[in-house]
């Protein structure tokens, strides 16, 4: 009775399964999962694992759109499973691991490539001005914070990589999230590491691989707008080039 009052429904989940020890290739498996209407896809997967098939593998942690672990393709769209509400879906819900990444097992994708790229762009503060503890904190005005705040919201969920066709076709592309994070630190008034990061991102494997499809910004669950970061890095790199080749007397 309680369940009925809350509103329940039988949800058909079609889940891409892959067991590296026994399977030659992934294949879909259909489950009927009794769900509460207010659940998200992650709740349905948790019910499935707890009650129907304990061998199902997937990543999740916070269940509140902060940790970035539960990214997967839901009806062909990169989504956080904790943000995909069942009430927004009718009929069979098809769940697959994130596109463009190798499949480790079931819904778990291999994140090694992204992690290596993240490390390359040095996504941390490289102080421009060395200060000791006695000098006090690095101060910043609201206007200086506004310059990069949007790009600091990234949770490394990799949905943008699953949406980006350039990354799918050319895996060496450093990609939306890593370049956005590099841009975030380049825009920070306390930072002095831009030259080091430009070595990685103002290159053919960096921003110049991007053709501004804009899919990354469409799917970002935190509204980081990676496409804007990449276009701004292109504009800034172009200005750098002109300054260096035609106006070398102007100090950057």
């Amino acid at each position, binding site marked *: 009775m309680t369940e009925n009052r809350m509103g329940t429904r039988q949800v058909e989940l079609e889940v891409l399964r892959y067991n*590296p020890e026994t399977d030659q290739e992934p294949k879909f498996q259909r489950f009927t999962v009794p769900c509460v209407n207010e659940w998200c896809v992650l709740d349905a997967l948790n019910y499935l694992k707890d009650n129907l098939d304990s061998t199902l593998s997937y990543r999740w942690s916070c269940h509140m759109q902060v940790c970035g672990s539960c990214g997967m393709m839901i009806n062909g769209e990169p989504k956080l499973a904790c943000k995909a509400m069942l009430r927004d879906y009718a009929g069979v819900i098809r769940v697959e691991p994130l596109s463009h990444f*190798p499949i480790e097992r079931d819904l778990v994708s291999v994140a090694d490539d992204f992690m290596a790229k993240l490390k390359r762009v040095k996504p941390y503060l490289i102080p421009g001005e060395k200060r000791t503890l006695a000098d006090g904190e690095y101060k910043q005005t609201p206007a200086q914070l*506004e310059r990069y705040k949007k790009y600091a919201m990234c949770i490394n969920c990799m949905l943008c990589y699953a949406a980006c066709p350039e990354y799918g076709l050319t895996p060496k592309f450093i990609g939306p999230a890593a370049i956005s994070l590099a841009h975030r630190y380049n825009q920070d008034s306390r930072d002095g590491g831009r030259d080091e990061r430009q070595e990685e991102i103002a290159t053919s494997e960096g921003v110049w691989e991007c053709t501004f499809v804009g899919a990354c910004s469409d799917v970002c669950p935190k509204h980081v707008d990676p496409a804007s970061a990449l276009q701004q890095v292109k504009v800034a790199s172009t200005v750098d080039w002109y300054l260096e080749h035609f106006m070398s007397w102007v100090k950057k």
Partner: protein
Amino acid sequence: MSRRPYVREVPRTTWFFKHPRYMRYMAREVTCIFIGIYTVILLVGLARLSEGPAQYEGFLEALRQPGSVLFHLLALAFSLYNTFTWFNVAPKALPVQVGDEHWPDSVVSGGHYVVWVGLSLFIRFWAGVL
């Protein structure tokens, strides 16, 4: 247990059929073909103009053919699509921050439309058409 990750290849020639947003992107890219052909026609017109009045009249006559009119209508539609799609994403590449706030996207893209209409009117006025 050994790792054996499974790689799903992206089809190199048909990937853009997979999602409507990829189709919209390809439509924007395809517009350049029509704009390119139109530019070549414009250059041919300039060359005919430099050769004399008779040659230029012949060029104008060719432009009046139904096939040519159809092409120009198509090229107009594609170049408008190109203009609108690029102006609408311009705020991503050129954000304007004044004080503690960024200008809304509509102001930045709206500015592009205003400059576009202004320049078009100026050129028509300058050329004596208006």
